[in-house]
């Protein structure tokens, strides 16, 4: 019988397959997509957030565990599991050597991402290069890889894995790692999860920045089979992206990075949030939700000529006009309402010394909502508008796991069913987002799941208690 069955083809699945194979297990990996689309959301990633106590090859200064944990605590608002989170954080300090061994190469932080040079290690060529490297390594090690293979359900007996079904085909294995992603590609499920707001089905206007293959089939199946549930189905990594982005797989380039340099209005031409609250890298991940609750799930980022060349070039050219009323007409906003908003904003601007690289002293006074930094009047033609929609990268609803990545059923860990990646990321990330944390969680728990699955398959003895693993990792 096959030792370890890995379901999924992204970073976490590949990490699990490689670790299980290295531990001596026979491994089969089932990827739902055709080969050309393999890798799930991992092909859209570019770095992992790494704990380190001193400068390393591509990482500057230090990013100690405590700071990392505090960053995570802040973005999640405490909706996290400290034990699992610290486990993933510590793993991130030791996994890169292993990644390099399997062909992943790192590069200095990309231009325009200097703020990430301390915390995030970038893959040379990005996530697809990483996925390619892992697949090559898996092939070389003899992992049996099947593309176009969608698992419909698992056969579980009291939380113990017996087999997976691909249509009528039953695939038995001694242990299984589910790393098949969240459910962000499943429009119906998203619709149901987000419900209605002001009479609108919020999720109907979402774009999916990630893969089109994460239908959440196994997530739903495991939950239906009694796996313990974690996370809120409406929580996800959501960014405000260009409204013209493709429905799926828009990836990184669809972001619009000029929000903090201008104002953002909704369909009623009203501002609705402080655009200059904090540095954009610390705020980009909240704007998906902000826009999601505006009418039509639409926002418009408005800038003037002063902002051009100060933000990462957008993939689609902005709507351009020589006057503000003209711009409003072009994007279909009520001109009077728009001009009232802009005039009020312009009049409220208290311009000090503009500096986009610090939290500067340009702010508004007597305006609601305020713009607390980088507030400069929109007064220099040409003006540009970028329509925004929520772009979902991945969902946080998942199955509960422990430090061994074992899936919990009724509070008890399964002996041989493990989960990693987005399907269990909600254990660590209940809310918000931190750049590069997704790959860190996937890598950490993918590796753990692979090791534990191999152990469960090869070792007839009772698995190590959780505390033992924790000690070994510490």
């Amino acid at each position, binding site marked *: 019988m096959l030792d370890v069955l890995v379901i999924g083809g992204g970073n976490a699945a590949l990490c699990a397959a490689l670790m299980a194979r290295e531990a001596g297990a026979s491994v089969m990996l089932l990827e739902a997509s055709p080969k050309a689309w393999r890798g799930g959301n991992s092909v859209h990633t570019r770095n992992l957030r790494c704990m380190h106590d001193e400068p390393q090859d591509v990482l500057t200064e230090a990013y100690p565990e405590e700071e990392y944990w505090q960053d995570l605590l802040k973005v999640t608002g405490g909706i996290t599991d400290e034990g699992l989170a610290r486990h993933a954080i510590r793993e991130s300090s030791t996994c890169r050597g292993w990644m390099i061994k399997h062909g992943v*190469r790192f590069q200095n932080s990309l231009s325009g991402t200097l703020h990430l040079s301390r915390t995030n290690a970038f893959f040379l060529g990005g996530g697809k290069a990483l996925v390619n490297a892992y697949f090559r390594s898996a092939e070389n090690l003899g992992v049996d890889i099947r593309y176009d293979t969608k698992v419909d359900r698992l056969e579980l007996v009291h939380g113990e894995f017996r087999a997976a079904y691909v249509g009528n085909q039953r695939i038995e294995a001694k242990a299984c790692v589910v790393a098949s992603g969240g459910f962000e590609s499943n429009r119906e499920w998203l619709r149901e999860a987000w419900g209605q707001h002001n009479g609108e089905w919020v999720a109907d206007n979402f774009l999916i920045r990630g893969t*089109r293959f994460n239908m959440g089939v196994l997530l739903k199946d495991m939950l239906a089979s009694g796996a313990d549930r974690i996370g809120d189905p409406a929580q996800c990594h959501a960014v405000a992206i260009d409204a013209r982005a493709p429905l799926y797989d828009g990836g990184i380039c669809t972001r619009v990075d000029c929000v903090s340099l201008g104002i953002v209005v909704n369909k009623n031409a009203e501002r609705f949030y402080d655009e200059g609250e904090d540095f954009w890298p610390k705020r980009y991940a909240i704007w998906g939700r902000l826009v999601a609750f505006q009418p039509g799930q639409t926002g418009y980022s408005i800038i003037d000529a002063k902002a051009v060349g100060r933000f990462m*070039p957008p993939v689609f050219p902005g709507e351009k006009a020589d006057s503000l009323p003209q711009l409003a007409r072009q994007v279909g906003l009520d001109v009077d309402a728009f001009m009232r908003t802009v005039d009020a904003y312009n009049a409220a601007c208290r311009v000090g010394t503009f500096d986009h690289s610090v939290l500067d002293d340009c702010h508004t006074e007597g305006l609601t909502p305020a713009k607390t930094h980088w507030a400069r009047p929109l007064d220099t033609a040409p003006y540009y508008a970028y329509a925004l929609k929520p772009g979902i990268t991945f969902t946080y609803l998942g199955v509960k796991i422990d430090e061994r990545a074992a899936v919990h059923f009724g509070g008890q860990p399964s002996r041989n069913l493990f989960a990693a990646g987005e399907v269990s990321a909600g254990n660590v990330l209940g809310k918000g987002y931190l750049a590069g944390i997704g790959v860190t969680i996937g890598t950490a728990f993918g590796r753990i799941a692979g090791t534990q699955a191999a152990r469960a398959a090869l070792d007839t003895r009772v698995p190590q208690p959780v505390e033992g693993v924790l000690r070994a990792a510490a």
Partner: protein
Amino acid sequence: MPPPEAASTSFDALAREAAALAAGGSPTSSPSARAGELTANEAEVARVMQICNACRYCEGSCAVFPAMTRRLEFGKADIHYLANLCHNCGACLHACQYAPPHEFGVNVPKAMAVVRVQTYADYAFPRAFGALYQRNGLTVALASAAGLALFLVLALALRGTLWHEPLAGDFYAVFPHNLLVTMFGSVFGLAMLALAIGVTRFWRNVSPGEVPPGGNAPALAEAAHNVLKLKYLDGGHGEGCHNEDDRFTQSRRRYHHFTFYGFMLSLASTTTATIYHYAFGWEAPYPVTSLPVVLGTLGGIGLLIGPAGLWHLNRTRHPLHGDDAQKSMDLGFIALLFFVSLTGLLLLVFRDTGAMALLLAVHLGVVMALFLTLPYGKFAHGIFRSAALIKWAIERRLPSRLQLGSD
């Protein structure tokens, strides 16, 4: 897989608009003739670069992407500069989240390759000869070689000197030295002149025209290093480039090195022999252990191994790499280099036999075909790529004009 029911086509429409806008809405029969107007191929590079500039994952792979990030818009000169910086290594294609089958259909190596051949044609001297790049394929190369060789063979046959008693390798008994110098020297000289004029025009159009702090010397040294080591076939991590799939291989770099250094050694052999002839009055044939023969032999071996390897790699390349339409041009050049070397080495081996005149005629025919096709074929890539690499080495030493904030 859920159907991409609302799959956006807006991007294509935008790209078309941009292209139409950039082209000023007035398509001409030779659309690349006037500066500022983009051909369809150039517009494709501009479209792709706009996507890449918003992504940047490949920044570490080669010089194209760091050069791209210094720009927000891609005009004609930028497009040709970037196209010639590209070595068609394939790294950015296999790593691309937007490559086919993605609807963005980003294929940087192909977009660049298609424009490169336009660079050669646009900057060709004389300009009217630019069209030759379209026709300079494998057939033309081999037909010219065979035709010229046959012509020389027939000339000898008519004079009754094709078959002869062994002449101890005395080539000049067959073709007088001055005749050879005049014929080959002038054709090679004209070929080099044509390329020099072309690349000078290219340089003037795309040069930043500024001298970096510290002068041009470090930039030139860096560019020379990058050319001589084929730095940008290293994948950014030193493990090589792609050929048939997403694996990295050094084979293309190695076979290119065999070819390039083989060519240079052969050139050195000829140069040495010329110096011997004119400076010292030492006339061919030179002994097997002499410098011209040793250099020529080593060069010849390089020019057998290199082109043979490159031929094989060319035939096994991933179908999405580069421009299929140019493969014939690539192969024509590869084949001529191979046959120049093969006939040259055969001539060396059999120069003391009665077949020397025949072998010499064939060899000279192939060499002449190579020289004639030199300025209007694949050879041009070396010249234009080197120029682009020098420009990059200068440009990256200049401060960026952009003040992009953090993303």
